[in-house]
């Protein structure tokens, strides 16, 4: 009798264990499948940039790694495309960098200044300023795109970095983010600073900015990616090929696939890879800051 029950118990135990394992295998299978779905296009692009275009055109992506990487890289980065004959990958990379960094920097500096004024000063029209600024969160650039374009045109800022960057800054995401953070900074800090005789500028630079370092880093990553990935606005503002960013130039890159007898897969995919890599690397390397900034800024 006892023997049987012990036996049954053992069976139940093993069944439980294998069932448990099966579930774990299933979990991993789903995650691996998901990861592959995300990765597959990247792998195809990596393969085609090492392969001669003719081979890609005939066979499509394969599992062999070719020897054309240098050549495709040279073509993508230094050989001009487009009508003007000046638009190299190098040039587009430079413009993308300026847009990404300029946008992130501008947004953070202006946002921090405004948030500081709203949170730390007794200001009669503070509420009005607050509402004026935060209404901008309501309407994305896309719905006011044509009038914005007209203004930039009237101001003579077409095909300039200012025209590209400043109108994009006209939304208060960073200001809102820093306002939330400043409000969470303990009241005692400013009291202590005032007792010690620190003025508003000294308090801002010596205490608040160092305290916000992590927040600034998180915001910088998100804003850099956002600026780098802009498409519609640069499409309208930059008509001069010299001013194209990589993302703006993607249409032109597509044309090297459509127009030619042998589509230039190597070159096009290389350019697309270069458009993808900087923001992706930033997000991967600064993952924890990035996730923190993203999940906290939108609350």
């Amino acid at each position, binding site marked *: 009798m006892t023997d049987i029950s012990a036996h049954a118990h053992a069976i139940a135990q093993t069944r439980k264990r294998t069932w448990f394992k099966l579930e774990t295998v299933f979990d991993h299978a789903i995650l691996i499948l998901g990861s592959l779905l995300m990765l*597959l296009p990247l792998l195809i692009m990596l393969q085609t940039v090492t392969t001669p275009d003719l081979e890609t055109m005939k066979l499509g992506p394969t599992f062999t790694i070719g020897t054309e990487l240098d050549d495709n890289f040279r073509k993508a980065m230094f050989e001009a495309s487009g009508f003007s004959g000046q638009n190299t990958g190098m040039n587009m990379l430079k413009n993308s960098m300026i847009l990404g960094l300029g946008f992130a920097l501008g947004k953070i500096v202006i946002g921090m200044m405004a948030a500081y004024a709203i949170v730390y000063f007794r200001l009669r029209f*503070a509420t009005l300023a607050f509402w004026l600024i935060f209404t901008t969160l309501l309407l994305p650039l896309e719905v006011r795109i044509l009038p914005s374009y007209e203004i930039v045109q009237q101001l003579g800022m077409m095909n300039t970095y200012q025209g590209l960057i400043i109108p994009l800054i006209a939304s208060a995401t960073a200001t809102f983010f820093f306002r939330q953070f400043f409000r969470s900074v303990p009241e005692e800090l400013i009291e202590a600073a005032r007792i010690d005789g620190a003025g508003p500028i000294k308090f801002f630079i010596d205490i608040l900015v160092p305290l916000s370092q992590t927040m600034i880093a998180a915001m910088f990553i998100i804003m850099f990616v956002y600026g780098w990935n802009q498409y519609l606005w640069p499409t309208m503002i930059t008509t001069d090929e010299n001013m194209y960013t990589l993302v703006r130039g993607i249409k032109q890159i597509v044309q090297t696939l459509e127009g030619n007898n042998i589509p230039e897969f190597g070159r096009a995919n290389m350019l697309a890879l270069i458009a993808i890599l900087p923001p992706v690397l930033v997000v991967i390397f600064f993952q924890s800051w990035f996730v923190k900034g993203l999940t906290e800024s939108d609350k």
Partner: protein
Amino acid sequence: MKRAGFSTKWLPILLLLPQLLIIAIFFYWPALHAVTSSFYLQDPFGFGQTFVGLENYTHLTSSVEYLKVAKFTVLFTVLVTFFSLALALLFAVKADKVLRGAKTYRTLLMWVYAVAPPVAGFIGLLMFNQTWGPLSDLFKFFGWDFTLGVNYFDTAFAMIVVSVWKQVPVNFIFFLSGLQSIPRSVREAALLDNRSGTRRFWDITFPLLAPTGFFLLITNITYSLFDTFGVIDTLNKGEPGNNPMTLVYKVFVDGFRGNDLGGSSAQSVILMILVLALTVFQFRLIERRIHYT
């Protein structure tokens, strides 16, 4: 405002000035301009404008083409939102559960966040390449001859797939951080009460994730409406005429290519109202959430 705030007069004004100046010139002025020019008919050759009242709006509501685009936009938004949220939730629940490789999975599932929508569209062109694209090959196996940019339905399908692919990572990040913020004690209590993992998910985890879910719902709708512009612009292969497009894309096509400023502005205003409604809804939800926690 802080209780012990500074009372300097000129400094805060100076600090606020750049922000206010930029939003005045590049936000309020254009937004206002969009509203006013929606009541005017622009001369296509640039010779002035005539006041036409609501004509631009009535034109739109009676336009078959506009209604077709609006219908597609609704369908597109519903499908993209649903599949991006569902897939992301699935991956997040699994990534939260596994012990081994959790960090690697997290990285692999989130990096696409940083890919620009038009570049995602470019990737779609590769995946749906007519001669050897892996996805069109797959469909060919099932007897579906996929022609991107030619067939309306196929192009719409590709637009949805690419938009979902691009949006899953953001949702994944939010769901995962939502899951990780569920207290250990709650999880353990649930584990004691209920052996079935599926039941545990629907009874405990899912309701606790609801605030994140509601927030993401609004974000995803906004994404489908506005941020998919780049995806659509690359996947229609430069021929928006007979391919599907969303409302935002139509604003661009009519205003920028078709030079119909009045009609395009009226479309902008309709979208503004839509976004305003969504945002107000979202703010009210957030307010409610603050009361709970």
